[in-house]
């Protein structure tokens, strides 16, 4: 650990040191400012894993004289490789955030009026348990739905399974990566999972469709992206916006939004038509290739030209470039892929291009992830739910393999196939995550009970009956992270500092609620340490070791064909399904086909949204470090369009969508980096909850403008890039 030399301190640090002692005048993001490091400071390093996003990088937090100082990557961690992303580094700010929830709250007046009475945990949990018991008696346990995001939801999920509801959902499926995983399962029999099984580091050619790595800051992916670029990989980017990744690309394809599937079909057409595909791989592992080849024969680059706006020569050249580097060509599957309602088929098309390139299981393609075997805690079996999940009645979406948030919302509104009367929401701001806020609010108004567990008073918390303040990750234990990746590993989240107020960890909340619900049988452990110890022991590990090291990495196992891993395809045919009988049986296209999507009316632009490296969803905007790095979003508009509209860079405008919904004022980023037919926002801003003092009223919310959505008929995902906006000048925001 670096300690200033005494001499240096006297020279450069004395002034600040004295100021810190006497009370600095500096405005600080860290409570009472505690100044630069000084000789003799007492430093402690505590390993844990991050919660600023779902990637769960192992980290080491350092306290100085008992105060949280900084967080760095754990060098042993296969995910972070010792380096966190800006959000992880800024995780310090999650602890010091002055907008945090401090104590349990019970609604005083009408839902959504955001007026509260502070109560004790005993009162809050007693209220919730009483109402859940009544709900169970009147409607059955299935009338409770649980919405969650991230590993922090594990213990509450356990409580609600024991309670007897099968209605457990997360927006990470139907509003994010669900279609991708379905498209890959239909093709290879396995999904891409998280963290993605993509060998970006060794790709010789990397193809990104709208996937803006570098802005989308999934740590390992971005590190590997930089490695690939550094190693001279050929990068091909198709995006209506000149993304950061586009700036590193050999080929940038300024594709018309909504036409990616046409580009993918044209690429397949070239790969097959010019005989550039991996014939050996297809012959050995392909199912239905002849029928597939016939199906894609019409979709030439010339056909795709008027659809995508991309020159046939550019389509051919990029297809050949991909073929040149195969099998180390990776057509990245993306992550947030709920765009147009045909997303599972588009994802399947991505899978098929990869199949033609033979990149599945190969170095520089998709590897076979390895995980550390840590048995689950030996709980008693859960009670058998009396009724099936409510979100997908009669298998309306035949390929949905996880719960649909939008299905729960629909059932809450309709009461069919049976009523949903309570929502319990953990760490997901549903008003910013689900499309059509009005539908969500109507559903909430139809509930008998809504409980929200969060760390800040988010919009969704504002609509709850009871709000429970959770300790931030730096103050709590959580379940073990054993995600499958390049190396098998186990990592631990453990407290670094104490919660500043009356916040509690999710495991404590889940257990305390379970005990009040009479579910003692499912909580044989009293403390989370007992739970963790019980899980670790059968894996040959101890809590003490994990507490000391933070992460334990198992021996490397083969993860590619090159390393000796066998190719297996758990599809119905046991092969890569170029032609899908499963899809045909359900009346869907067995080979993806392009369907045009509605175009913006004159004067309107397609609304696109994405990520910035310093924020996660709508969860980080009050973090003082991250808010300072990016305090608000801007609307990206093509510079010519801005000029023609008589507007200028930095002007505030409102966006008005096709249904007349008007955004908060947002500044224009007039830029060459986007097409003229769309505008772009970073997601997560435009907060309206008054308790989010640092961010309320800053920027605009894409979620508010997403009143329309296109549901994926295969799996129920909600395509959200189907909204159009026009600009209303004179937004009345001072420069």
């Amino acid at each position, binding site marked *: *650990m*670096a300690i*200033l030399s005494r001499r*240096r301190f006297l*020279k*450069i640090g*004395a*002034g*600040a040191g004295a100021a810190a002692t006497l009370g*600095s*005048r*500096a*405005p*600080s*993001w*860290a409570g009472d*400012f505690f*100044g*630069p*490091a000084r000789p003799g400071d007492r430093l402690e390093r505590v390993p844990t894993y991050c919660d600023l996003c779902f990637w769960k990088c192992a980290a080491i937090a350092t306290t100085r004289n008992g105060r949280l*100082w*900084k967080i*760095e*990557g754990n060098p042993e961690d296969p995910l972070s490789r010792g*380096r*966190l*992303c*800006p959000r992880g*580094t*800024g995780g*310090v700010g999650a602890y010091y955030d002055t907008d945090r929830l401090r104590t349990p709250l019970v609604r005083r007046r009408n839902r959504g009026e955001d007026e509260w009475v502070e109560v004790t945990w005993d009162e809050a949990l007693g209220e919730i348990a009483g109402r859940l018991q009544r709900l169970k008696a009147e409607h059955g346990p299935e009338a409770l739905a649980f919405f969650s995001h991230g590993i922090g939801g594990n213990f509450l999920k356990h409580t609600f399974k024991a309670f007897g509801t099968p209605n457990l959902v997360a927006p990470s499926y139907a509003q994010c990566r669900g279609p991708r995983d379905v498209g890959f399962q239909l093709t290879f029999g396995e999904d891409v999972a998280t963290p993605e099984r993509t060998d970006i580091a060794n790709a010789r050619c990397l193809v990104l469709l709208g996937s803006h*790595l*570098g802005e989308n*800051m999934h*740590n390992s992916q*971005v*590190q590997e*992206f*930089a*490695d690939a*670029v*550094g190693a001279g990989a050929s990068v091909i980017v198709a995006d209506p916006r*000149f993304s*950061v990744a*586009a*700036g590193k690309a050999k080929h*940038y394809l*300024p594709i018309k939004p909504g036409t990616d599937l046409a580009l993918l079909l044209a690429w397949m057409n070239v790969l097959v038509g010019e005989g550039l595909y991996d014939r050996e791989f297809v012959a050995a592992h392909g199912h239905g290739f002849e029928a597939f080849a016939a199906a894609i024969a019409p979709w030439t680059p010339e056909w795709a030209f008027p659809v995508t706006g991309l020159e046939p020569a550019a389509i051919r050249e990029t297809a050949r470039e991909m073929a040149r580097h195969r099998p180390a060509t990776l057509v990245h599957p993306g992550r947030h892929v709920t765009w147009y309602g045909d997303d599972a088929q588009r994802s399947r098309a991505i899978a098929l291009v990869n199949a033609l390139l033979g990149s599945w299981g190969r170095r520089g393609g998709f590897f076979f992830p390895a995980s550390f075997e840590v048995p689950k805690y030996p709980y008693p079996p859960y009670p058998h739910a009396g009724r099936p999940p409510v979100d997908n009645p009669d298998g309306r979406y035949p390929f949905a393999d996880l719960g649909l948030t939008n299905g729960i919302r629909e059932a809450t509104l309709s009461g069919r196939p049976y009523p949903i009367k309570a929502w319990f929401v953990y760490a997901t701001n549903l008003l910013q995550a689900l499309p059509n806020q009005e539908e969500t609010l109507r559903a909430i108004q139809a509930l008998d009970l809504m409980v929200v567990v969060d760390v800040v008073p988010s919009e969704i918390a504002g609509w709850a009956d009871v709000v429970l303040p959770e300790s931030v990750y730096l103050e709590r234990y959580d379940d073990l992270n054993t995600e499958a990746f390049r190396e098998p590993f186990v990592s631990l989240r453990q407290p670094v500092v104490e919660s500043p107020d009356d916040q509690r960890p999710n495991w404590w909340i889940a257990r305390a609620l379970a005990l009040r619900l009479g579910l003692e049988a499912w909580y044989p452990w009293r403390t989370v340490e007992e739970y963790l110890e019980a899980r670790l022991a059968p894996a040959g590990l101890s809590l003490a070791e994990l507490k000391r090291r933070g992460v334990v990495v198992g021996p490397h196992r083969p993860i590619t064909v090159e390393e000796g891993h066998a190719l297996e395809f758990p599809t119905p045919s046991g092969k890569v399904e170029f032609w899908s009988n499963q899809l045909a049986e359900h009346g869907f296209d067995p080979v993806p086909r392009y369907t045009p999507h509605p175009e913006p009316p004159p004067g309107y632009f397609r609304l696109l949204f994405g990520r910035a*490296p*310093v924020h996660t969803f709508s969860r980080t905007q009050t973090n*003082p*470090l991250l808010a*300072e*790095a990016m305090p608000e979003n801007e609307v990206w508009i*093509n510079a010519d369009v801005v000029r023609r509209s008589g507007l200028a860079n930095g002007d505030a405008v409102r966006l008005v969508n096709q249904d007349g919904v008007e955004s908060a004022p947002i500044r224009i980023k007039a*830029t*060459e*980096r*986007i*097409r003229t037919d769309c505008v772009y926002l970073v997601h997560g801003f435009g907060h309206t909850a008054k308790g989010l003092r640092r961010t309320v009223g800053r920027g605009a919310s894409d979620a508010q403008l997403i009143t329309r959505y296109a549901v994926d008929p295969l799996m129920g995902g909600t395509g959200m890039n189907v909204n159009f906006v026009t600009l209303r000048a004179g937004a009345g925001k001072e420069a």
Partner: protein
Amino acid sequence: MARFGMVIDTARCVGCMDCVIACKTENQVPEGFHRDWITTEVSGRFPTLSMEIRTERCNHCDEPPCVTCCPTGASHVEEFGRIVLVNHEQCIGCKACLASCPYDARFVHPDGYADKCTFCIHRVEAGQDPACVAVCPTRCMHFGDLDDPQSEVSRLLQSCRHHALLPEAGTRPRIFYLS
């Protein structure tokens, strides 16, 4: 004695601001101020564009005008690594150095002294890289002794095309960008 500098590979940089945030926590930089920042330069017309993203900070110039103009001697070149530093006690907050810096790398700390990047001298003395370099997820930044021909930074400058910022200012900056 060493002469520290940085070599930054802009091809790898994604402008994520991890360097900016790491500096804020490491050095407890107060709210509203920063010692390093990201610049994005875009040229061309859509869709034929090129873009350079850079992480920028004090260039620890070999000919530092901030030192020459300082009336009290607070701004000085430290013997260790030729790092340009400010002695907080001696600084009277006159802002002459702020005006003289072609890179706009300095600010007046709310406690009254001129502040800026120190190359994390407290870390470097302990054998570590500056916080911004150590944290960077793209590994685009390299720190080392420009006078040592065997150092990583020297070897990168010998083998790769590079440029510095505002060489015409004549301050002989010690941060170089590979392009």
